[in-house]
């Protein structure tokens, strides 16, 4: 349904924009019909930037994003609006997604003004009613309230209901449950899974590996803007091949399993930006990095199992 093809994002930083910072580096993956793909990475890995590029909130430096085969990365005006009928996003902080001065259902009115100017009120109210029920809210309880009168979980459902008012086929869910409590987050998570079974495709952006495992069919692991590993969720979680993925899996706190007491090793990712744009992004933290020559060219994604890709010279070496 949605295909990213060599998408990159370069920011100009420094005084007068003299330096460039590659936030997303040549990322390619696709999301199929009614599929949940989780995009996992630590902060600063570019996962939100990818979501923003899909939603046109930030421009693309190079590459293309195709939606049902059509390149949508440089849409403008009417065509872009038409695109928003099918692709919508929900973001991390439900409290700052609303204007606190107005009632929460104002977000529905703006949708009506922009996308359905000709619809009559009765039909519109029915539409709101059905999409509210679809996200498990009782319209009588939550309509006509201010954002502070609703809970985080309710507000987040509200935003999903707003997306459903349009004929949405693709949802970018950017850390939508990180701010919610344990007791409410499962409800929103199950809602996403239910929407998926109705044919919605979801890009689930998260840093929480267990949430990604719970819901997605496919996982994409990002590190410093590069895809280091992607494949079916079960294979990525149970047979991680890239050293970075292995490290992540070992760090997840799990109930019933204590961390193995190892050396505390934090090479901070933000300390050294690699000077050369080439080379494996993970080189300076990698425990199995080979000599400089091997790892100084960027490894490309190689398919090691059907559907399971990894970008590491070690893997390709072993294969050959």
């Amino acid at each position, binding site marked *: 349904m949605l295909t990213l093809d060599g998408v990159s994002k370069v920011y100009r930083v420094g005084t007068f924009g003299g330096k460039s910072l590659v936030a997303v580096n040549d990322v390619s993956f696709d999301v199929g019909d009614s599929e949940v793909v989780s995009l996992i990475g630590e902060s600063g890995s570019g996962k939100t930037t990818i979501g923003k590029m899909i939603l046109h909130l930030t421009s693309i430096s190079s590459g293309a994003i195709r939606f049902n085969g059509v390149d949508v990365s440089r849409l403008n005006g009417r065509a872009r609006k038409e695109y928003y009928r099918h692709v919508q996003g929900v973001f991390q902080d439900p409290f700052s997604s609303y204007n606190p001065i107005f009632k929460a259902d104002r977000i529905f009115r703006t949708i009506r003004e922009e996308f359905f100017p000709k619809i009559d009120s009765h039909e519109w109210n029915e539409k709101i009613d059905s999409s509210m029920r679809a996200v498990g809210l009782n319209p009588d309880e939550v309509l006509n309230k201010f954002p502070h009168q609703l809970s985080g979980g309710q507000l987040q459902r509200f935003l999903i209901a707003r997306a459903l008012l349009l004929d949405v086929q693709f949802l970018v869910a950017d850390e939508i449950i990180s701010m919610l409590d344990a007791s409410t987050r*499962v409800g929103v998570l199950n809602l996403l899974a239910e929407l998926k079974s109705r044919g919605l495709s979801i890009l689930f952006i998260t840093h929480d590996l267990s949430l990604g495992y719970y819901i997605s069919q496919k996982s994409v692991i990002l590190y410093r803007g590069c895809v280091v590993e992607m494949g079916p969720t079960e294979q990525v979680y149970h047979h991680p091949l890239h050293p970075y993925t292995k490290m992540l899996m070992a760090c997840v706190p799990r109930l019933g399993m204590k961390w193995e007491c190892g050396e505390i090793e934090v090479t901070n990712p933000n300390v050294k930006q690699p000077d050369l744009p080439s080379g494996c992004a993970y080189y300076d933290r990698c425990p199995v990095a080979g000599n400089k020559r091997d790892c100084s060219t960027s490894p490309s994604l190689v398919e090691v199992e059907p559907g399971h890709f990894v970008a590491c010279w070690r893997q390709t070496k072993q294969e050959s």
Partner: protein
Amino acid sequence: MSLQVKDLTVYYQTLKGDVHALESTTFGIADGEIMGLAGESGCGKTTLGQSLIFLHPPMKLIKGGVTLDNKELPIGDMERMNNFRFKKVSIIPQYAMNAMNPTRKIGKMVADLLKSRNVDFKSLLPELKRRLDLVKLSYDVLNMYPIELSGGMKQRMVMVLSTMLNPSLLIADEITSALDVSSQKAVSEMLVQFRDRGYCKSVIVITHDISVLYQIADTILIMYAGQLAEKAPTDVIVHSSQHPYTKMLISTLPEVGVRYVDKQLAGIPGGPPLLLKPPVGCRFRERCPLAFEKCLEKPPFVETEKDHFVACWKAGT
């Protein structure tokens, strides 16, 4: 017992009346114990942490007392508390970025802070460097502004800063919530090391992430709507808890190995009660599947087994 909290009740004063944020909490922490404090947002866990060190308006101490190392802690008295803050009781606040002065270099700020407590910075410098080594920070950070550090580095710096004077009690408020899994692990392991090396005697770790607590805490205290629900050693809380709220809270945690298609997790229906006019009796009653008539009466926080405290009429039956 290092810390003994007795019948502590703290309300927030608002124009609409008192918000009963903390109601008759009684518990103790042993020397060298790391106690995890968990619960939903708004359950009063941060209020409890704050009231042990900085009980400021609109918070108001209604009743109760705290003893630390057999000495009374004057938590209600702002002035007298100053002798204890940072020396005996210290806190790592929720957002490390807000905890540091953005206009001062970190080394300078540490010096200012120590001077305000009449401690000589120069004599503590070797110790400071030793601790920076322990948390894998280079000495250069002392010459940097907070903005130059990443979130994980700031968090580690604040940890070193808060424990500089070897406090008896360290309150760590949501120190891992904003961090990535890899720095989360490093920071929590460092916290355990701090305890092992005696930089702080006992620790309260406030978090909503029980799976992190499982890794580092000796005991876990679960709160619900301003009241204590259960306190027990970590393994007991996770595997054989007695309070229905604890059981439900633990069953809602998604884990690696659980998938929507195989096993659908259930949330806890409903939401916590408003604390402005809290319901009488057990506050979990509305959402509890086991509730019966007796729950209209507030259940006492009693020890059902050794070191296992529960506030539920159905516990132990």
